[in-house]
């Protein structure tokens, strides 16, 4: 055993020494090439062959992209159409406010979650070399004018210089990753003010010949403001983060992200025409009634020794709420918001025993109820008020923003549904198991496009009188139900990876099934399936392009049909398709990169 100890000590000592690797003299590119590309005759031949193929491919690609007769004006002129379709010019500030809210949340989140990753000078230098390499490839293979090539060459040389400096002089330099990201964004936004990208505009539906100069004020000003909003939000977050409890701050921010979509869409972009008389006569009183009466009931239910009678009352409330919905289906209608509030109260009442106990906990429980009630009632009111935004057609958004809206709404809705299905399919209760399994197998057996068409055509027939779902909403609903089935199967994989000992340990501590599921099982199961979940997110995002087929004006349709069909840009379909593909790629590539980061972060605690 002593020997073993010694060995262990020896290993440990070696590890300590290993922290400072001997300084390897930096390899030049020649050494690297000899070791990696030309280590033998065979590999040399393969390298050369591969190089020729790659060169040919890139030359063809770049020759096409930068060819003199390419109609990139079609894209440049139609950027607004691409991103928001026909959102009215005079209300466009709403779009920027909607984006601004997201930017502010991003800045605050970076501060509150202490995004403090660092990048070394060595790595930055590598990035700089990479950029230079890209530029050199570009200028060598693209059909540029000599003047343009000279400019590109100069820029590339600057990057090589920076890279060389960082690698050889300051390799140990550490810069905050956040700074690098914001710096890059600042350079991009700043370039809008100085680089003559040219002005491409429509005036009264007529394409204007492109004018030289920087981009229009309506583009560069808002983006500058967006960047500033994000930076200011970061510093605000940094200033307050030590003064508030981290749990509260993170909770509020998470809630903010969850609410971003409905607030952005229903409140900011739709601009509902509120009738304040109606609001104060009906909506506010209903809210107050539920807030006061609901709180009283919940306070009573969560008293520590309520016991059996509490469960009976809560159960009765669930049944009561169900009856109201049934009655509504048969025409005897109680106001929809009242029915929604009743269901919420009943569900929360069921949870009351979990929060029974100390006064402080019960008080938080009641506050939680009032806050959720207020949010739901507010949103329901906004949803039910008609929009004042003046657009052709029924939906205020189109193009990229529609794609983004459908994808995010689908993800947000399919996540909880998928979780419930996965838990149902693995539950011990046969009814839940049967229902979930049937649902999943039926949905997975049907092509997505069938479901989308089905929802578009059929859904409105099933809805109660007077309620109409737009095609966009029908698509979101159908798509969510579809994705939920796939998500459920992914999550189920995670659930099955949890060892029996985890359930037994939780049971031995007296934890109930809901507690075990939410604190022990789900957190571990979800961690285990991050990679397939991210694939799911990417697939969901890309497959929104099927909206094209059911006739919605999503990003793809705008590019392929609308812009491609403009008389000024006849025959520009290929350019538009390339642009659409490029934007899709940027987004999905960023998602997959950030998921790698997420995996690294989650892996840390487990090991």
């Amino acid at each position, binding site marked *: 055993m002593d020997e073993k100890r010694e060995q262990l000590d020896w290993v440990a000592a070696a590890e300590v020494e290993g922290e400072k690797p001997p300084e390897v003299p930096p390899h030049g590119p020649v050494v690297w090439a000899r070791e990696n590309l030309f280590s033998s005759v065979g590999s040399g031949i393969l390298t050369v062959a591969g190089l020729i193929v790659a060169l040919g491919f890139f030359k063809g690609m770049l020759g096409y992209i930068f060819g003199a007769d390419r109609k990139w004006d079609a894209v440049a002129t139609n950027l607004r159409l691409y991103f928001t379709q026909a959102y009215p010019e005079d209300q466009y500030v709403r779009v920027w406010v909607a984006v601004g809210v997201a930017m502010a949340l991003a800045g605050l989140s970076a501060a509150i979650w202490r995004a403090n990753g660092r990048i070394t000078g060595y790595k930055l230098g590598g990035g700089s070399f990479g950029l230079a390499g890209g530029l050199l490839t570009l200028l060598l293979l693209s059909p540029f004018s000599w003047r343009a090539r000279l400019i590109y060459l100069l820029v590339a040389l600057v990057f090589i210089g920076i890279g060389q400096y960082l690698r050889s002089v300051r390799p140990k330099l550490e810069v905050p990753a956040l700074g690098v990201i914001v710096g890059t964004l600042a350079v991009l936004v700043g370039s809008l003010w100085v680089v003559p990208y040219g002005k491409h505009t429509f005036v009264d539906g007529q394409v204007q010949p492109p004018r030289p100069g920087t981009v229009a004020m309506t583009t560069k000003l808002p983006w500058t403001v967006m960047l500033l909003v994000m930076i200011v939000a970061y510093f605000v977050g940094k200033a307050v983060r030590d003064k508030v409890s981290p749990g509260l701050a993170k909770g509020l921010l998470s809630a903010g992200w969850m609410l971003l979509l409905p607030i952005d869409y229903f409140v900011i972009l739709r601009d509902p025409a509120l009738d304040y008389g109606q609001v104060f006569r009906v909506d506010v009183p209903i809210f107050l009634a539920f807030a006061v009466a609901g709180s009283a009931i919940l306070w009573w239910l969560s008293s520590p020794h309520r016991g059996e009678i509490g469960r009976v009352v809560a159960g009765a409330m669930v049944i009561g709420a169900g009856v109201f919905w049934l009655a509504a289906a048969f025409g005897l209608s109680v106001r929809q918001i009242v029915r929604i509030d009743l269901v919420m109260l009943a569900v929360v009442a069921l949870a009351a025993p979990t929060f029974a106990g100390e006064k*402080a906990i019960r008080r938080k429980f009641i506050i939680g109820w009032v806050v959720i009630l207020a949010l739901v009632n507010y949103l329901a009111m906004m949803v039910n008020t008609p929009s004042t935004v003046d657009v052709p057609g029924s939906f205020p958004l189109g193009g990229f923003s529609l794609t983004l809206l459908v994808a995010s709404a689908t993800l947000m809705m399919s996540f909880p549904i998928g979780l419930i299905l996965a838990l149902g399919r693995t539950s011990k209760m046969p009814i839940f198991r049967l229902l979930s399994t049937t649902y999943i197998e039926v949905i997975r057996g049907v092509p997505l496009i069938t479901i989308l068409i089905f929802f578009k055509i059929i859904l409105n027939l099933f809805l109660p009188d007077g309620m109409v779902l737009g095609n966009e909403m029908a698509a979101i609903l159908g798509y969510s139900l579809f994705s939920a089935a796939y998500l459920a199967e992914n999550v189920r994989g995670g659930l099955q990876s949890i060892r029996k000992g985890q359930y037994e340990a939780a049971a031995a501590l007296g934890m109930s099934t809901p507690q075990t599921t939410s604190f022990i099982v789900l957190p571990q199961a979800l961690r285990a399936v991050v990679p397939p979940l991210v694939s799911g997110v990417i697939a969901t995002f890309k497959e929104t392009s099927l909206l094209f087929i059911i006739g919605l004006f999503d990003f793809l349709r705008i590019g392929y049909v609308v812009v491609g069909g403009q008389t000024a840009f006849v025959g520009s379909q290929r350019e538009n398709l390339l642009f659409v593909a490029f934007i899709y790629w940027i987004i999905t590539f960023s998602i997959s990169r950030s998921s790698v980061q997420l995996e690294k972060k989650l892996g840390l605690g487990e090991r």
Partner: protein
Amino acid sequence: MTGLESRADMIVCQGVKKWFGDFQALRGIDMTVEEREVVVVLGPSGSGKSTLIRCINRLEVHQEGRIFVDGIELTNDLRNIEKIRSEVGMVFQQFNLFPHLTIMDNITLAPIWVRKKPRAEAEALAMELLERVGIPEQVDKYPGQLSGGQQQRVAIARALAMEPRVMLFDEPTSALDPEMIKEVLDVMKELARTGMTMIVVTHEMGFAREVADRIIFMESGEIVEEGTPEHFFTNPTEDRTKLFLSQIL
């Protein structure tokens, strides 16, 4: 122990029988464990030791006979079960810590959510227990960053944080490297000294001899012999016990 003062019965098993399919794992167990008593259960592999103590907090369900814990009978009533489980702490062979939670969260989770303790109070208790098992400095780590012996001591602290009246140990040192066994046994000895009622399944004969008030020897789902360590190790009466002892000593 003097055995003079009369002590309450903590655990009572009457004719407990248990089948896995057609296979009978427990063949009518009668056993009583008094308050503050330390009982060590010995027996060859497959004799039903784990099954017996797992029946006591209903990780396994017995089909015949009755089990009482602190006067409450184990029935299918869910609230009874959760009540008993929070009174009975259990330590597993494989530790079964929650790998996604820090040591602190591992220990405080159940007190906060099951016992409804305020967080500050639960954390103070957790620190006190970690001192007691000798690893307060590990509080912010994750289980995967601890050695086996340290993990098992955390598992003991986690069970103690529920302030149980009985502790069940199912081969707590069997998954440990030899040099870590002692640190866990020391914690258990200390626990026994403070008067905790304990049922321990183990193959550590030294521990049994030193700490047990009573030893129960099981084979094929039955209690073959029981008595004080002195009786058990020096003049066992049953042949099967003698055979078992000759094999392991």
